[in-house]
């Protein structure tokens, strides 16, 4: 049976690091408070005018190298922090990667962007529109954070992760075998930046700088909906793949909060040592989170050829999704 097959991964984070100690100097908090509630010890942030495309280009190049290819038929960039509201950032990334006049577009599904992207890419390849795709998840969300909001500044970091996918078969290692995607617009205000779109145009005196920034105002509700949706979505994808929870070698969830990942793993019956965690080093990197986790897990040698892997996410929208895949030889 035809399937999209993952054949390369890569990741990149900016060099500037903000530790919990740094944050205790800015906010009334402690290192223990931050790490016990989030699992985060540090996050990387862009500096010196660097933006999402700078991160995306680095991760994209790493993924192309990992796959051993120098051309693709499509670039999809999952991001909610494009360089500009218009045009999309993907064409610029394609040019900078030397990929010529290849098809390129941005995909906006926040923290679910990479998982949604995998489904879109599988559709593109399945329809025979091309043989190979570069999917990048990249966000410089630190540029959107309300600097006075402890909840937001504590949680988010910047980065990019990428994967190369090719047209192949379900029996190939790296094949994407099952998907589950969903959304609930009733929860739109759960994680929202008010301005910058068409609803609140930049009329002088009507839109403040704060309206363009993100604050974490409903942390409890986010935790609640994320654990519930991620668990249900991951269970759905397991059913579709025909896998039992104890067969899963690695559960790679969106790194939003270590407590969410632990709660989802527990509810699914996946052993804690099978739940991949790198949020301690990176924070929540939005669309980059899952591909960065895959790149890290590959570099660490924990993901091995033939492993059964489940990806699960929840993000603004709200959106959620899961993918079941086998891990390729990289």
């Amino acid at each position: 049976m035809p399937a999209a097959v993952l054949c390369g991964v890569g990741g990149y984070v900016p060099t500037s690091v903000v530790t919990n100690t740094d944050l205790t100097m800015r906010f009334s908090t402690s290192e223990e408070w931050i790490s016990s509630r989030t699992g985060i010890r540090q996050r990387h942030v862009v500096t010196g005018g660097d933006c999402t495309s700078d991160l995306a280009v680095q991760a994209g190049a790493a993924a192309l190298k990992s796959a051993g290819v120098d051309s693709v038929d499509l670039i999809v960039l999952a991001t909610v922090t494009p360089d500009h509201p218009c045009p999309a950032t993907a064409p610029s990334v394609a040019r900078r990667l030397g990929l010529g006049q290849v098809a390129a577009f941005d995909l906006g599904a926040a923290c679910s962007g990479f998982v949604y992207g995998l489904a879109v890419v599988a559709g593109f390849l399945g329809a025979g529109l091309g043989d190979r795709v570069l999917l990048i998840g990249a966000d410089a969300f630190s540029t959107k954070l309300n600097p006075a909001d402890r909840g937001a500044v504590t949680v988010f970091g910047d980065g990019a992760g990428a994967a190369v996918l090719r047209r192949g078969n379900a029996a190939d290692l790296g094949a994407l075998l099952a998907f589950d995607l969903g959304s609930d617009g009733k929860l739109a205000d759960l994680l929202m930046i008010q301005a910058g779109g068409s609803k609140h145009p930049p009329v002088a005196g009507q839109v403040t700088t704060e309206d363009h920034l993100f604050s974490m105002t409903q942390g409890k509700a986010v935790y609640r909906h994320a654990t519930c949706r991620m668990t249900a979505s991951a269970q759905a994808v397991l059913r579709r793949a025909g896998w039992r929870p104890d067969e899963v070698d690695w559960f790679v969830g969106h790194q939003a909060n270590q407590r969410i990942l632990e709660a989802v793993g527990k509810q699914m019956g996946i052993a804690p040592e099978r739940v991949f965690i790198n949020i301690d080093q990176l924070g929540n990197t939005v669309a980059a989170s899952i591909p960065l986790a895959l790149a890290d897990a590959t570099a660490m040698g924990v993901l091995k050829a033939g492993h059964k892997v489940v990806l699960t996410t929840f993000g603004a929208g709200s959106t959620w999704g899961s993918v079941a895949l086998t891990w390729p030889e990289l």
Partner: protein
Amino acid sequence: MDTEQIRAVVVELVLGMDGVAGQVPATASFEELGIDSMSTMDLLRKVEDEFGIEVPDEQLPMIVGIEDLVNFVASAKQEVSR
């Protein structure tokens, strides 16, 4: 189910939370019991499952202790029975 019975079930669920042991005074806040905001959400999920009710997001800031939770469950059950 009267309020006393609801309270007994809620206290039982609270005692099942990690790190909670010994006395659970009905007047205690979750914070005083060592249950932080995210663990409170785990507790709410168990309460929702146990009583077959749903706690709307807008109620979350108001439910900070056992008594708040018991009162919410009692009024939600009353709504259901009407």
